[in-house]
Each structure stands twice: as structure tokens, then as C-alpha cells.
């Protein structure tokens, strides 16, 4: 039976699902309820010198009827007195000794202030420390948060100060608001950090009220750039986690953060090297209860794949990410439309014409299927768009609008009521000109029907060759 129990940077975890340092971990009462719901750990909302927060604080963007695709906040670190937070940490650890409590810290850049804060947190009995070098709003204006995380030297220095004092594992949380995230990661590692977490939130403006012209979130008519998170940021977070984990000078145990809300999200971060994952927006959206399926679903997947522990699959996808120059130029796929599944929406057709390479046509009824396939690799043979002179989408549309149709009457029109609605008319099923198809995937991405458009491998008869190899070969020929 697979298990979710794991050890992260020396910290024993009941499961890899932690709540990130954020509003869901604001106080002990919340965190204990979260542990009851099944969370394995919680990174306490960052403590430091007490702050005053503004009202309002959050904003989000919805997409196609789904709420909170992306979420943004301008809330600062904890606005509760540090001693209250520390007292509650001790209480939580006393009541939930097997659950992980991490203290997230952010104080002014003075060695003795950091030493004192580390001491107080560890005295409270926490399992580890996380340095908040990522917060992009407000605190950075005071020389903290991402103001530290964006400068590798500061990052290294403060990590060093903390390590002088800390007895528990130290996690450094990285900001994505930087050109190359590997630089602060390397700095943290040089200074002795035990682990990393990534990513913190991304600088953002989520939107502007088109009536008042005021950006959101609105604080007395004004706004400030906030930290972006939620499902929308996951691809960015995955990319940054991979960059760090593929860099031998930066890689450390990684706690993955960024848009995680499901077991699939968690598995993806783990396949790129994360040992635990941290969640915030999804819990803010749906509550602590989401962790149940994250665990249930991940275990079921592990069972299907034959993995016993998280370490069995952690990082397995890292070797599959490489620089573009090391991709095989002689690998080729082309789109195949499975006519039996096609519902005739023709989204692939318009997407291919306007957004890709003009190689999907609506000509099954007029000889399109009989057109010879040249068998050449089109990327080199023909650089001409629409070489067969097929009708453009505008021409197709104009023809349709001119067609005269009348309401069918059951008695008079044999093919009347609903007779064709279950079967896609052949003329509405697009055809791929496989000779011209470059294998870009776009049609299969826009198709609303699962498995209707598949990308099929075509044998090119050529040996694998990367761009790097091609350049090297060309140079050796020259030499």
C-alpha cells in the first residue's frame, strides 16, 4: 500500500500537503481545524514586527464563468502581535505533535533582530523555519520580503545569520519577481539553507473597474500592485521549480507552491522535484476540505503507477525537461481528426486558419479526401500557406449566410425534426492536410471533444538530430 508519509529536509510529515504562509494560517484556531481536515503541515502566517493592514485587500480574475482563476492580495505579514502568534504555535504543537508547524519569519535586516526572532520561534516548538524573501508588496518598500529575495547577496547574508542561530531546518522562500530565480536559490544554498520553497506571489494588477477607472483591490479609490497566485500561476511556478531543481548549484529539498489545488497539481510539482507542496488560494476558495481529495487522488494515482512513496517518483520528470537546442528536430507528429467523435463545431478549422498553418479544410464533400499526399516533410518542401488554394474561413462563412433555408415541417420535409442532430454531417467534419500539417497541436488543444483530434507520430525516416548537433556537424564540416 502506498503511503503519503514523507520526510522533508529532516522533518517527518504525515503527508506532503502544507498550507502556505497566508490568511488560512493566520491563527492557531484555523491551523488546528486545518489539521483536523487532513493537512499535514502549516506554514504560519509570517510573523515579524506588527503591521497595520488596509481594507480591502484581495482581488481576483474570473475566466469563462469560473471564479478566481487568478487571485491577488495586498495584505502584509501578520497584523497580530508576535507573542500571540508564538503562544498559539506552542499550543498547536502541544495538541498536534505529529503535524508540522513552520514559522515564517520576516524582520528588518539586522543580524541580532533575526537571531532573536529565530530563538523565539524555536522556543515555541516549531518544526522548522521559513524565511519570507518573497512578499512582493508593502514589506518590500520597507527593505524586507522581495527586496531581500531579489538581491542574492542580501539573501545569502540573512540566510547565513539565521543559520548561525537555528537548530531546526531552514527553508528559504523564493520570489518569482526576478530575472533568474536560480541566483537567489544558489545564494541560499551557499549560506547553508536546508530547503527552498517556490514560488511566492507574482507582481500584478488584476483589473480595473471600468466605471470608476480604479484598479482592484480598491483602497479608498487607489490600489497597489499585489501578489498574484491561484490556478493561473501554476505553469510559471512549475517552470521556476524545475529551473531550480535542475541546477546542481541551487537544488535543495523543495516545497512547491503556486496554483496547487488538486492531486494532479501536487503530482506535477513532485515530478519536478518538490518533496512537499504548499497550498493557499484553493483553500481560500473552497476551504480546508479540499485536502481530502488531494490525498485520496494522489494515493490512487500512486497505486496505479506502482509508487510506494513520494520519493519513488519525486523528480522523475526533471530529465525530460531540456533546453530547446537538445530537442529532436526529426521527430514529427500530425493531427488526425477522428470523424466518429467529431461534433462539427469547426473550432479546429478556424484555429488552424487564423492561428496556425492553414492545413485544415472543409472539403470532405468535394474531393478533399482524394487529394494526393505528397509524403514530403512540409516544413522543408513547401513554405506556402494554403498551397491548394482552399476557400478561406471568410469565404465559407459568406457562402453559408447566402444559403436559403426554411423551417422543416414534419409532414412535408422528410428529413425534418431533429433527424440529423445526432449525426455530424460529413461536410462539417474538417480534414487535415497531413502533408502540410506541422504538428503544432493547436487543433487538438481547441477541440472540445476528448480524443477527437489526436497527434499521430509520422516516421520521417531520419535519425534523431538536435539543433545543437546540427550546428556542431555543420561546424565540423566547415573545419
Amino acid at each position, binding site marked *: 500500500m502506498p503511503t503519503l508519509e514523507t520526510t522533508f529536509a529532516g522533518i517527518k510529515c504525515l503527508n506532503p500537503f502544507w498550507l502556505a504562509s497566508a490568511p488560512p494560517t493566520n491563527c492557531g484556531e484555523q491551523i488546528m481545524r486545518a489539521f483536523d481536515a487532513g493537512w499535514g503541515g502549516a506554514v504560519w502566517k509570517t510573523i515579524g514586527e506588527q503591521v497595520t493592514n488596509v481594507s480591502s485587500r484581495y482581488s481576483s480574475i474570473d475566466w469563462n464563468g469560473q471564479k478566481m482563476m487568478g487571485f491577488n492580495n495586498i495584505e502584509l505579514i501578520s497584523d497580530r502581535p508576535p507573542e500571540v502568534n508564538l503562544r498559539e504555535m506552542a499550543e498547536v504543537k502541544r495538541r498536534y505533535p505529529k503535524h508540522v508547524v513552520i514559522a515564517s519569519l520576516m524582520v528588518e535586516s539586522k543580524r541580532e533582530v533575526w537571531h532573536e526572532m529565530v530563538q523565539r520561534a524555536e522556543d515555541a516548538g516549531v518544526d522548522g523555519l521559513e524565511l519570507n524573501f518573497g512578499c512582493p508588496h508593502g514589506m518590500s518598500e520597507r527593505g524586507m520580503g522581495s527586496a531581500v529575495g531579489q538581491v542574492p547577496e542580501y539573501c545569502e547574508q540573512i540566510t547565513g545569520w539565521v543559520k548561525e542561530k537555528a537548530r531546526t531546518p531552514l527553508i528559504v522562500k523564493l520570489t518569482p519577481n526576478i530575472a533568474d530565480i536560480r541566483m537567489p536559490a544558489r545564494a541560499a544554498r551557499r549560506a547553508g539553507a536546508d530547503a527552498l520553497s517556490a514560488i511566492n506571489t507574482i507582481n500584478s494588477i488584476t483589473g480595473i473597474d471600468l466605471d470608476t477607472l480604479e484598479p482592484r483591490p480598491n483602497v479608498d479609490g487607489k490600489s497597489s500592485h499585489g501578489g498574484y497566485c491561484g490556478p493561473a500561476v501554476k505553469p510559471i511556478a512549475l517552470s521556476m521549480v524545475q529551473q531550480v531543481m535542475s541546477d546542481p548549484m541551487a537544488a535543495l529539498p523543495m516545497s512547491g507552491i503556486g496554483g496547487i489545488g488538486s492531486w494532479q497539481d501536487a503530482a506535477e510539482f513532485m515530478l519536478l522535484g518538490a518533496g512537499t507542496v504548499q497550498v493557499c488560494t484553493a483553500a481560500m476558495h473552497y476551504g480546508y476540505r479540499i485536502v481530502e481529495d488531494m490525498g485520496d487522488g494522489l494515493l490512487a494515482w500512486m497505486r496505479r503507477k506502482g509508487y510506494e512513496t513520494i520519493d519513488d517518483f519525486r523528480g522523475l520528470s526533471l530529465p525530460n525537461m531540456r533546453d530547446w537546442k537538445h530537442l529532436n528536430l526529426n521527430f514529427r507528429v500530425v493531427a488526425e481528426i477522428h470523424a466518429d467523435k467529431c461534433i462539427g463545431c469547426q473550432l479546429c478549422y478556424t484555429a488552424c486558419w487564423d492561428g496556425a498553418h492553414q492545413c485544415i479544410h472543409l472539403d470532405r464533400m468535394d474531393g478533399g479526401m482524394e487529394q494526393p499526399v505528397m509524403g514530403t516533410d512540409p516544413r522543408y518542401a513547401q513554405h506556402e500557406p494554403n498551397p491548394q488554394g482552399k476557400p478561406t474561413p471568410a469565404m*465559407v462563412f459568406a457562402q453559408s449566410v447566402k444559403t436559403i433555408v426554411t423551417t422543416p415541417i414534419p409532414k412535408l420535409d422528410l428529413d425534418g425534426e*431533429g433527424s440529423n442532430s445526432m449525426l455530424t454531417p460529413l461536410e462539417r467534419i474538417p480534414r487535415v492536410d497531413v502533408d502540410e500539417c506541422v504538428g503544432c497541436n493547436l487543433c487538438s488543444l481547441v477541440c472540445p471533444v476528448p480524443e477527437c483530434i489526436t497527434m499521430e507520430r509520422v516516421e520521417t525516416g531520419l535519425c534523431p538530430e538536435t539543433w545543437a548537433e546540427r550546428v556542431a556537424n555543420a561546424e565540423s564540416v566547415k573545419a
Partner: protein
Amino acid sequence: MSEATNFFSKAGVSAEVAARFADLHPPLEKTAAVTEALRCLYCFDAPCMGACPTHIDVPKFIKKIASGNLEGSAKTILEANILGASCSRACPVQVLCEGACVMHRYNKQPIEIGRLQRFAMDALHASGDPLPFTPGADTGKRVALIGGGPASLACAAELRRRGVHAVIFDARPLPGGLNTYGIAEYKLPLAESLREIDMLAQLGVEFHFETMVDAAKLAELEASYDAVFLGMGLGAIHKLGVTGEELEGVTNALDFIAGYKSGALKEVPSRVAVIGAGNTAIDAANAAVRLGAKEVHMVYRRGSEQMSAFGFEYEHARQEGVRFLWHVTPVKVVGEKKVTALELARLESAEDGSLVPKEGPHILLEVDLVVLAIGQGTHAEFVSAAGNNSAGKIRLERGRIVIDRETGQTSNTKFFAGGDCTNGGREVVDAVADGKRAGIGIAVWLAAKLEGNHANA
């Protein structure tokens, strides 16, 4: 330009009728509309658009609902169909746009296109904004339109947008034809039809009501106008041709429906028989139930599989509690002064499909009201008398005016036609499509003539 009309205020709707004929398909609330709009896949060259006789760009107007651009949504609908509001309620969407929706093949419910269209049109009406079109620059040309139903209205709108004067002649006191007087109130209330015509009239359409056009009047109009559009629909409902038909208590579906819609008829006796099994017969039968009849029978000479009503209309009637008598035909209307019963003979199909009487006793169905809905006759003979004096006769076929489908032009170039008088009786949306093509056709023909004159001069 004529002054703003206010037909809407002339709708004599009784509160009781309104309550008995509540919306069959209630309006969508805003959140529901947006949620439904977001479900639309935004097909390219969408089948729903192809299935609509007026080719409303359905995905386009639905996307605009989703984006909150309701003005643009209504304009998209009206561009293609000036009676988009009444069509959204009256269209048999199951066999048109919604029937063609690709969602049928996606194991999902089709998009509720009709209700979304109504949502966009209701929003325009609620905004108080004018029609999003203006009349074209005056060409000085004048067109007479015979009949004020959907075909003429659609034709008039196209003409006005192209700067041609449009003058409608209608026999009734209010415009709209069957759109106003003939559609079940739970689908399209009379007042809603009038509201839509008030908007259309903003383009400067002239109306002459209670004006019968006969051969003499038509000849007069032909002489004084640059072109004539024939959109007078069909004629009276066929007679049964049996004894007792003239008794009190025998009426026809069109008068019956117009009667309750206009407020003249508020209740019916307890036993009603509707003869026929088309969509109009169903409308009449359902109306009888809602107006208080205890027992409503539909009487049809063939079986359910041959009825000309849509399947969903048949289902609706069953749900309303209408009973069906198949394979019978009235042979006599029984009664002294008032109808008391219908004598029905049984029929069966011969091998060639024709109906022959079946052995056995006749059925006596006790009724207080008989509503005939066995099809309308044509009403176009008078036009063959006109047109003689110019470019030849207007050709008819089985009483229907023959037109060029693309332009609506008849065999006499000065006459155009569309709607039921050309197709034998179809849907509102078919009449609108005909009227639209004819409006464009007339404007093109007038412009070509003008150019020809200039060239000659």
C-alpha cells in the same frame, strides 16, 4: 418620417388572460443567461446559424451576452432578424437553431438559444434605447406593402434602412398579422408583438389600418408606387363541408385565437372539439383548456404519426390535458340552434394511403364548441387581376405566389412577395427571412432601374 407609434398601449390585455397564459418558457435571469452563454462552444460557421432561416449569427450574439455587451448582442440579432424578439419566443427552436446545436452530439443539452435571444432582446426593450439602426438617405422611392405581418414588416425595415419609403396596408386595426393575432399567448403575447413593431416603426414605416386591398386597390397602388410587396399571408380556414356547420358554436382556430388574444373572448364552454392536428389546432386546443374548458378533444382523420404539428407541440398538448381522437372525421354538426354534438365517422387507410370509411356505428361526441383548424385557403387570386397592365401577370401555383427565392421578385418585375402567401404557411421566421430578402431585392431593383434611367438620359 412618420411620428412615433404607440401600438403597445393599444393592446387590450385582460389580467385574467395574462395569468392563464403565463410564459411557456420563462425569461432567463441574468446570472443564468451568462452561465448558459458561457456554455456555448462558439462554433465556426455554426450549425445553429445555418439552420436559422434569417441566419442570425448565434455564437456572436451569445458571446456578447457572456461579455456583458448586451447592446451589441441585440444589434447582432436585429441585423439579421428585425423581429428577433418575437422569433425568440415563437420559433420552434427544437427544429431550428437548437435542433442543430452540436451539443446534441456532445451528450449534452443544446444551448438554450431561444431564451438567450429573448434575454438580449428583453434587455434592449428594458433599456428604452431606440433601434440601433437609422433610415438610409432618402431615395425618393416609395413601396406599398400589402399586409402588416412579419414578411411585410421585415421587408419594410430593409427598405427604410436603404432610404426607400415603406407604406403598409393592413385589414386589421393593429399591425403584426399572425404575429400579433395568431400565436399562442404563452409563447408570444400580443402586447410583445406590438412593442417590437413600435421599435421597428422608429425607422419611419407608414401604416394604413383597416384597409382591404382588392384587385382595384392593388391596381391603384401599382400605379402610384415604385414597387409593391405582397405579404398578405393566407386566407380563411377551410370549411368542413358538412351539415350544421353554420350553427352557433362553430368557429375557426384563427378567429378563436385572435379572439382571446385581443380580449374579445374571455371564456369557453366546458366541452370543446378542435378539428385538425396541425400546430394551429394545438394552439387552439391548449387555449381552450386554459380558458376553462373541462374536456378538450382534438379530432383528426389520420394517426398521430401523420399529424403536421411538431412532435414537441403534440407532447405539450398532452401535458395540457388535451385528448385525441384519431382516424375519425366529422360527418355532421349536431344541434338545433346551437351545436350540441359532433357526429364522427371512423376511417382507415387504404393500401394507397387514401382514407376510406370504416364499417361500424358513428361516434357521437357531445360538445358545446367546435373549432376548425384544418388548414387555411390561399388568398392570392386577386393579384392575378393586377399587374396585367404593366409587365404581365403575377404567376401563381396552387394559389401561391411564385417568387425568385433570392430576391422575392414575382413574374411581374414590379411585384415582390414573401411569407405565407408564397410558401403556403410556414413559421414567423420564414416570413421574416422572405421579407428581408425581398426588401433588399426591391432596393437593389429600384437602384438598378434608377441607374438605367440615368444611362438612358
